[in-house]
């Protein structure tokens, strides 16, 4: 056993080449957080491409409008699946499951997470949930056509496969809870000696705040989705108005989870920004403590704003005013972050590499998304804009432009560390620029259309919206082209020969002190922390 131990601790051998199993089993049975992170990455990219294809088809249908490519029912099914796949399988778990798993233990100086086996189980639950969602496509009844929100009473009455899709989301919730539980315990127990709370990298702060939301919000949607299934199978009347139920209660319970889920998506992404900016500005982060605390503040306030999804559902004026006020409050900690990032760049020695390009694009796009969020958060304007393309544009700006863009930014930042290979940076930058151009031409016209009254979730439109839809669809092609070039570039780098050094960007956090890719046990000796994560000599 001791011989084995010496063998595995060899810091010159990457984790890819350690372990006794070979082939696929070395992955499927591994409890190593790095391998689990990579397995999430592979699964997630597959699900993302599936969701992207569905989105592409929807945009294609909107080019000519009318019944060209598909009819209303198919379009309903597509936007439901697009939403379910993108939200439950990509955006919510994305950054914590992939980068959190791979990097959290390394960044806090640990050998693994607290519960490695539970971690592997979360991955299996995630895959099971994903497969159940995909299965709902193929079984009798056809794909769910309710939209990803599964609003009652329609979700109880429709003949489509709502139960299966909902059950998939339920299982995914379980995976999310267990990951959150694991991360909180890991951060509490396994920080390296000397790493006080305020010496933790900000990415870990983002994950910590996220994990609490995962833990405290997800069970609520778990029970809500379970109730839908019970209503469908056993006719227990909990939400169905025909049995005296109140559909508004469903909306409350659904958004008690699903609004905080928005912060599950964005907080780790914001943590990533706080990693990338100091690295490429070659400067200590400006306002470490406010950034760390603002993550917790967003998590806390974000828990109390769900009602803003229901301004037009018929809730009382008092609660609308309170929810509107609380919604505005979220903008404060978000603003704190943005200003601190910009202040970090100020007078820095900026090295505009590909990851930083992603981050700068994020700041611009996310600011547009955030400001239009305020438009939706105020009562009067929301009544005008609710259920229009304005909402669609807003959440794509914050979600896809926020988490999505940064997922790829993070991938470019940590790719050398994860795989030990370097990609072609010129192509990466080109892909990023194409992404941003395509993104804005795809979604910006939707703000205008929504303002002019184009409702969401219709497969057809009035002739005056034609020019906007054309720009939007063409934008989707540019965006997809950018994404494909990016993936192609990364896959090519994987197969290429150009090796990455230990610290290609000049980062200061712990992951840059181990070899690329890291050895099995991460650290030869657990490091002792004496200075802040972004301090430079």
């Amino acid at each position, binding site marked *: *056993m001791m011989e*084995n*131990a010496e063998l*595995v*601790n060899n810091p010159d051998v990457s984790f890819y080449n*350690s*372990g*006794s*199993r070979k082939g696929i089993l*070395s992955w499927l*049975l*591994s*409890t*190593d957080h790095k391998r689990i992170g990579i397995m999430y990455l592979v699964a997630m990219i597959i699900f993302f491409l599936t969701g992207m294809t569905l989105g592409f088809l929807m945009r294609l249908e909107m080019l000519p409008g009318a019944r060209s490519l598909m009819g209303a029912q198919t379009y309903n099914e597509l936007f439901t699946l697009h939403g379910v796949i993108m939200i439950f399988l990509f955006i919510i778990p994305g950054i914590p499951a992939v980068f959190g798993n791979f990097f959290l233990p390394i960044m806090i100086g640990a*050998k*693994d997470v*607290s*519960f*490695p086996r*539970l971690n592997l189980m979360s991955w299996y639950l995630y895959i099971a949930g994903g497969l159940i969602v995909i299965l709902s496509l193929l079984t009798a009844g056809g794909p769910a056509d309710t939209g990803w929100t599964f609003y009652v009473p329609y979700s109880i009455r429709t003949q489509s496969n709502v139960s299966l899709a909902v059950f998939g989301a339920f299982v995914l919730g379980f995976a999310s*809870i267990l990951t*959150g*539980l*694991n991360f*909180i*315990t890991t951060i*509490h*127990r*396994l920080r390296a000696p000397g790493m006080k709370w305020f010496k933790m990298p900000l990415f870990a702060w983002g994950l910590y705040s996220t994990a609490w939301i995962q*833990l*405290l*919000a*997800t*069970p*609520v949607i*778990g*029970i*809500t989705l379970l*109730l839908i299934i*019970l209503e469908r199978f*056993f*006719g*227990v*009347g*909990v939400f169905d108005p025909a*049995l*005296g*139920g*109140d559909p508004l*209660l469903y909306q*409350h*319970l659904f958004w*008690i989870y699903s609004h905080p889920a928005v912060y599950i998506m964005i907080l780790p992404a914001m943590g990533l920004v706080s990693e990338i900016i100091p690295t490429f500005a070659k400067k200590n982060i400006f306002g470490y403590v406010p950034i760390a605390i603002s993550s917790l503040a967003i998590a806390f306030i974000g828990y109390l704003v769900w009602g803003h999804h229901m301004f037009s559902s018929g809730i009382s004026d008092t609660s609308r005013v309170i929810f509107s006020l609380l919604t505005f409050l979220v903008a404060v900690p978000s603003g704190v972050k943005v200003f601190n990032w910009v202040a970090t760049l100020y007078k820095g020695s900026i090295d505009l590499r590909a990851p930083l390009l992603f981050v700068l694009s994020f700041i611009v796009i996310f600011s547009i998304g955030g400001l239009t969020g305020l438009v939706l958060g105020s009562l009067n304007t929301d009544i005008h804009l609710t259920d229009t393309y304005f909402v669609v544009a807003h959440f794509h700006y914050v979600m896809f432009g926020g988490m999505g863009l940064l997922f790829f930014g993070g991938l470019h930042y940590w790719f050398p560390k994860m795989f030990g290979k370097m990609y072609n940076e010129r192509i990466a930058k080109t892909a990023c620029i194409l992404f941003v151009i395509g993104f804005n031409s795809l979604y910006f016209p939707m703000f205008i259309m929504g303002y002019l009254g184009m409702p969401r979730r219709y497969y057809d439109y009035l002739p005056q919206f034609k020019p906007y839809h054309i720009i939007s669809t063409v934008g989707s092609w540019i965006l997809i082209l950018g994404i494909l070039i990016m993936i192609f570039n990364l896959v090519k780098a994987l197969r290429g020969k150009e090796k990455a050094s230990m610290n290609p960007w000049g980062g200061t956090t712990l992951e840059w002190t181990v070899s690329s890719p890291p050895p*099995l*046990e991460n650290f030869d000796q657990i490091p002792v922390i004496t200075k802040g994560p972004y301090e430079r000599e």
Partner: protein
Amino acid sequence: MSNESEIIVTQNSEMHIHRDDEASKIGMWLFLFTELLLFGGMFILYAAYRFMFSDAFSIASIRLDRIIGSVNTIILLTSSLTVVLSITALKRNQKKFAIFLLLFTMICGLLFLVNKYFEWSAKIQHGIYPKGPEMANLPDGEVMFYGLYYVMTGLHGLHVLVGLIFFTFILIFVLKNKITSENIQKFENSGLYWHLVDIIWIFLFPLFYLIHAY
């Protein structure tokens, strides 16, 4: 005790972190939070509907069997006591006594489920179940009451069952000396879970059985 590290070699013969009882305890408490919120969603629904249909709830409550409900409350509370005693006994190395107390706890859990079975089947025989023949004659509020009754006590019963499965494993581990006074965290965690099941019942019992004033 918690400083003692045992090296676990997993299937990959990758070395992993030694046992960390503190982490295991934190993890369990976090899990209990999620359980509370799971039931919390249902308690919110209960509160909202009871506010809407307060009279109907109180009338529907008459039909629930207070005797069985009370007996079950006593059984579950007793079992919560015996599981703590069992853990303490094992900590004092009184293995046989600990096993006796654990078995007693499990029998209590089983009795609870048996009572629950008779209670449910009596209701079902009277046609009181979702889509049942009697339900059509009842006003909305009472239908809602019984719907929530089945869902909430059903989910709770499921938790009792899961607790019993946990205890079965614990029993085997204790018999095989894999859980001892030196290594008792798994047992303590299962005990915590059992208390949670108990606490939820303490809220369910009055909210369903005792809301009618005679």
